[in-house]
């Protein structure tokens, strides 16, 4: 218990330092946030253009599609705050600077995680909260218990995406290179999930439900939250997001620790 309290104290302290460091460059700080928000708004505009002539994509009208997209962006924002810098773990290993995380009296995973608190993620929040709000009012939703599912989807989604980031980064313990994998596995997968899962072949659907559970990030929760019926998966599956997220993250964390045990410094 004491160690947990100490951990939280340390984490807040290091996060505070990280935020102060990022606030040193005011203009960069603001542009970073606006830049992310604009990038997502750009994708939303593309979706609008796409649906202009066609009306709906497999039964999903524009605002439903925006909701699906924004839900993924929201949990990605939460995930980014805690785990985004795991993407560049391989650079620490290659440069030999990872060793410093091993010689301090804190758990190395925790230490690396606390190293950065990415304020750029506020751009994700700016876009996704505005988009979810607009979709909510345009689709005339009235949630009661659904707010719990929504909250669960954000937490579960952050854990699922964070888990995969952690798992990808741990590949660097064996190969010293992992960032490429982010661009080959995670980036296409994330883009894929911006559109309803039902348009993809069964193999892809099974992959993102049972192996890399990205369906629990936005598609399955969106089915419940928008009151839609999935053709294959019962909507209640979406409520399982936090559970799936916790299990997946735990597995990824085990994998990371496995890699850490194998780690031999690359520095000379």
């Amino acid at each position, binding site marked *: 218990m004491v160690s947990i309290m100490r951990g939280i104290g340390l984490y807040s302290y290091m996060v505070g330092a990280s935020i102060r460091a990022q606030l040193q460059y005011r203009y960069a700080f603001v542009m970073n946030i606006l*830049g992310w928000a604009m990038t997502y708004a750009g994708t939303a505009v*593309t979706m609008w253009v796409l649906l202009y002539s066609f009306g709906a994509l497999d039964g999903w009208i524009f605002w439903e599609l925006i909701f699906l997209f924004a839900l993924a962006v929201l949990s990605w924002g939460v995930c980014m705050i805690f785990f985004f810098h795991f993407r560049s773990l391989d650079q620490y290993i290659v440069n030999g600077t990872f060793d410093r995380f091993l010689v301090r009296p804190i758990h190395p995973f925790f230490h690396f995680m606390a190293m950065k608190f990415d304020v750029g993620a506020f751009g994700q929040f700016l876009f996704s909260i505005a988009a979810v709000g607009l979709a909510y009012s345009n689709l005339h939703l009235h949630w009661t218990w659904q707010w719990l599912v929504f909250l669960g989807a954000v937490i579960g989604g952050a854990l699922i995406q964070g888990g995969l980031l952690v798992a990808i980064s741990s590949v660097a313990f064996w190969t010293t290179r992992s960032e490429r994998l982010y*661009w080959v596995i995670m980036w296409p997968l994330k883009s894929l999930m911006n559109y309803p899962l039902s348009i993809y072949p069964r193999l892809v659907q099974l992959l993102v439900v049972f192996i890399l559970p990205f369906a629990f990030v936005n598609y399955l929760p969106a089915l419940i939250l928008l009151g839609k019926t999935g053709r294959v998966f019962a909507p209640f599956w979406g409520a399982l997001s936090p559970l799936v997220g916790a299990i997946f993250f735990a597995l990824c964390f085990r994998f990371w620790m496995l890699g850490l045990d194998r780690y031999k410094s690359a520095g000379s």
Partner: protein
Amino acid sequence: MYWEFSRKSFQRSAAYRFDVWTRIAGNIMFLFMWGFIWYALYYGKETVGGVSFQAMLGYIMISQALQGIHGAGAQLWEIQERVRTGDIAMEMLRPYDYTTRMLFSDLGSIFFYFITAVLPLYTVLFLVLKPSVSLTLAQMGLFIVSAVLGFLIRFCIEMTFGLFTFWLIETGGVEDVFYFSISLFSGSLVPLWFFPGWLEQVAHYLPFQAIFFVPNSIFVGQLKGPDIFNALLGQAIWLLLCFVILRLVWHRASMKIVIQGG
């Protein structure tokens, strides 16, 4: 002399073959994603706005292939990085023109990427998926001319945006304008004929449609007859304009570096 840069960057690409494979893997995944999106949009419809699904499939396949080719060159962030770290000063000391050198380096890596990844894979994909394309020899020739013009226009614009880094410490905003324009207004994902009328007008007056939309449309036979020549003329004018702007910005940027270095 500049061909030497092409040769070197060809060899460099050959040495980092793993990068080529991961890049083409990502490219193909996005092709499949857009294929399924368009398939779902077209489900139950023969043609939309006079365009069949088979033609649309041809459009996104050639678009994705071209995007792959464009992506093999130096990216906006690499140019920005070179300006930001000051590496560009070393380049300017050397007896060649920086932008021309970059173009020739790009040609080398693109050629490697083209013959080892894009050409074989997309040949197979076209044979297997059989999209409807209009391939008379003359049209194929015009398509190639148009694609090359599009490539040069994209190069000039990307380089110009990269050089803006000389004036800006933080390039976030500039970058986003560039990436947004190149993904939407170029017609790389959604062809301009599906745009709402007013947005199509806007896009027609921007240079970005000359990058992907014109060659893609020629490829699938949506642009025909004299329209092709008008479109090619438009591309040529855009290229000239973008080139002049690039040279102007480059000239101002080199003055800027002299001032800072003094």
